[in-house]
């Protein structure tokens, strides 16, 4: 019975002009977005390559003369531009673009959004404008196509699922036969899901080809796994809108009413809710100080640490005669603690800012459009999750780099602390190839799926609830 209903519905859905119009719209959007992305992606890749080349030059210099170039061995660790940004840009331009690492004083400075990466940068706060949840724009990516265009198409496909049949008089005719009501709903649902899925699949294949042709992005397994995960997430998201469309149809008795209801729900869930909660919450500023305030707080923390530790130094110690104490263990410990306190303060507020963004996300959990946005950025490994991943990788690299210097260059090492004074390092040239290099690696698909799982889980729950509710309401629907 289900097969009979499904086959008829599929033919009807795929042969309608609605399907062809939406397909043309989606493919046009994919083409335009590909062109925009290509241009931007190549620029980003150039910037990234330059920064990486500069890092290599600095390290080569350091390898030749570790002592002489210790101060300039800083490296820029930037968010690597990924082809996955075409799947989900996730406001990556609006978040800090990476870190500037100076092993000399244990400093890891945050690079501000869109800031030039060469030269010395200074920490700037992530102002409220830089909160990714606060951006009232859309990025030209596949996420936009699914989140906005295809969700609309899904509703358009489903809004007349029941009412149109009733208006045609076919609903009564169907139910004059031994047809289970749940099968009717299931056939409508599966057919719409398949129809939307076909449009999406064609769009994804086209985007893969265009990316390859226009940006010379190879068909890597990573990109294909990202696209596959994105397809999965998109189908779960679009399923919510198909069920909402069917629900509107079940709750209405005329297609016109159902359409109006669908449009209102779409505008609220896709446009109004996800975009306004971020703005409303950022009005409170999340209790995160401004960049200048953070700098002052970091400075204050350093001084307090210094004051506390200098009490342990010999009485004749002062800032002017510190050269005398450069090999004093307590003094070195103090320098280390001084910088660490500064860094910890900066890190603390960075974590706080990230937590503020996550708070916004939690409020937006009510909107399937937001859940989809977060899950697509998670499966693509872009946006805030990319930044957090970069940060984790840098922390690991920092340890690797210092361990290398410590082990290879017989640096002064006492107790549990370690500090890079030039005269504690041997100036014997290093093997450049042996120096650990930083690379922003894309997490494996399993990890990305795990990151997305809370959002996907909620979307699945939405689906289950809506499906059960639709079937329940339709059991008592007046089919006359």
């Amino acid at each position, binding site marked *: 019975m289900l097969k009979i*209903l499904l086959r008829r519905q599929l033919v*009807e859905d795929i042969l309608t002009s609605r399907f062809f119009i939406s397909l043309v719209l989606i493919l046009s959007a994919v083409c335009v977005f590909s062109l925009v992305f290509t241009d931007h992606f190549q620029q980003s890749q150039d910037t990234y390559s330059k920064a990486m080349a500069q890092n290599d030059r600095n390290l080569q210099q350091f390898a030749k003369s570790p002592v002489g170039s210790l101060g300039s061995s800083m490296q820029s660790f930037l968010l690597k531009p990924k082809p996955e940004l075409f799947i989900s840009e996730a406001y990556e331009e609006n978040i800090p673009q990476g870190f500037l690492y100076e092993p000399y004083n244990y400093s890891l400075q945050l690079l501000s959004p869109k800031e030039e990466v060469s030269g010395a940068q200074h920490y700037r706060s992530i102002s409220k404008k830089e909160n990714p949840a606060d951006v009232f724009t859309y990025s030209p990516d596949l996420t936009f196509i699914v989140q906005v265009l295809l969700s609309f198409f899904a509703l358009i496909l489903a809004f007349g699922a029941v009412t149109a049949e009733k208006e045609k008089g*076919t609903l009564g005719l169907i139910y004059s036969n*031994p047809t289970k009501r749940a099968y009717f709903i299931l056939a409508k649902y599966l057919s719409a899901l398949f129809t939307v899925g076909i449009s999406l699949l064609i769009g994804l294949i086209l985007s893969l080809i265009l990316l390859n042709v226009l940006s010379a992005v190879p068909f890597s397994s990573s990109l294909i796994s990202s696209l596959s995960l994105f397809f999965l997430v998109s189908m779960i998201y679009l399923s919510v809108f198909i069920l909402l469309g069917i629900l509107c149809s079940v709750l209405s008795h005329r297609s016109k009413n159902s359409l109006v209801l669908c449009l209102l729900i779409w505008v609220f869930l896709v446009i109004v809710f996800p975009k306004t909660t971020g703005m409303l919450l950022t009005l409170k500023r999340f209790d995160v100080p401004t960049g200048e305030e953070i700098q002052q707080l970091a400075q204050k923390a350093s001084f307090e640490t210094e004051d506390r530790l200098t009490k342990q130094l010999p009485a004749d110690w002062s800032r002017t005669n510190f050269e005398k104490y450069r090999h004093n263990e307590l003094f070195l410990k103090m320098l280390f603690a001084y910088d660490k306190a500064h860094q910890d303060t900066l890190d603390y507020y960075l974590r706080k800012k990230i937590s503020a963004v996550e708070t916004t996300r939690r409020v937006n959990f009510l909107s399937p459009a937001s859940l989809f946005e977060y899950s697509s950025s998670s499966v693509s490994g872009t946006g805030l999750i990319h930044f957090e991943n970069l940060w984790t990788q840098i922390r690991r690299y920092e340890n690797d780099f210092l361990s290398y210097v410590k082990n290879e260059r017989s640096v002064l090492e006492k107790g549990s602390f370690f500090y890079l004074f030039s005269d504690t390092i041997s100036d014997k040239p290093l093997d450049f190839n042996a120096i650990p290099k930083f690379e922003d690696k894309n997490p494996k698909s399993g990890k990305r799926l795990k990151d997305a799982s809370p959002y996907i889980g909620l979307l699945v729950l939405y689906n289950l609830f809506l499906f059960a509710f639709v079937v329940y309401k339709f059991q008592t629907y007046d089919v006359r």
Partner: protein
Amino acid sequence: MAKQQPILKTDDLSKRYEDGVLAVDHLNLNIYPGEVYCLLGANGAGKTTTINLFLNFIPPTTGTCYVNGIDVTKDPLEAKKYVSFVSENVMLYGNFTARQNLDFFAKLGGKTNLAKNDYYQVMRRVSLQEKAFEQRVKNFSKGMRQKLGISIAVIKDAPGILLDEPTSGLDPKAAEEFLEILNELKKEGKAILMSTHDIFRAKEIGDRVGIMKEGRLVMERTREELQYEDLVKIYIDYMKSEPLKIWPLPGEPAC
């Protein structure tokens, strides 16, 4: 006519809608194989509600509907295997051809092994033009759609057929053709319940004719009885008579 088990039967059937309207009031009907029962009545008399109750589109307030001896409320899926339905305004799927529509509804009715020729045969039988078989239904006239509707009922080959004002809006020729098909189905032993406003055709086709007023079956005559009575006069007299007193249903408070 040899009395067998009725195919379509109501047992003290009543339906009161949520707005308080008593649409069907203690209706008792028995329609036997090879019998056409015509239900006459003004708009709102309860004819369509009776058909809807047979199809389990709405639940009865009291009483029971049986199709082929099966309680419609208790086992609707089983009961619907034994009944076909033709509505007043058959719209069908406009983007599908006549054959595709027929194929879909035949399969829903359980006829899954039919060939193209079987569909053509049924459509020929209901006098649908050959050239229309593979045409999209959206271009069909009302008469053509009604014929296709009856072909859906024919192909299901159920022992009971429910017709809800099937000739309304049809031109006289199409209506006449429609009645011819009904006569054939009757000869095949189908039990047919037809609601209609058309007194003349009811008299012509009906083995029994019932008049409903305000939900009650107020009169019933056999074909033989109607040879000596004027159905038009009876109908008009009943329509002009005083409104009936509405009695509360069991369990309802007295009015």
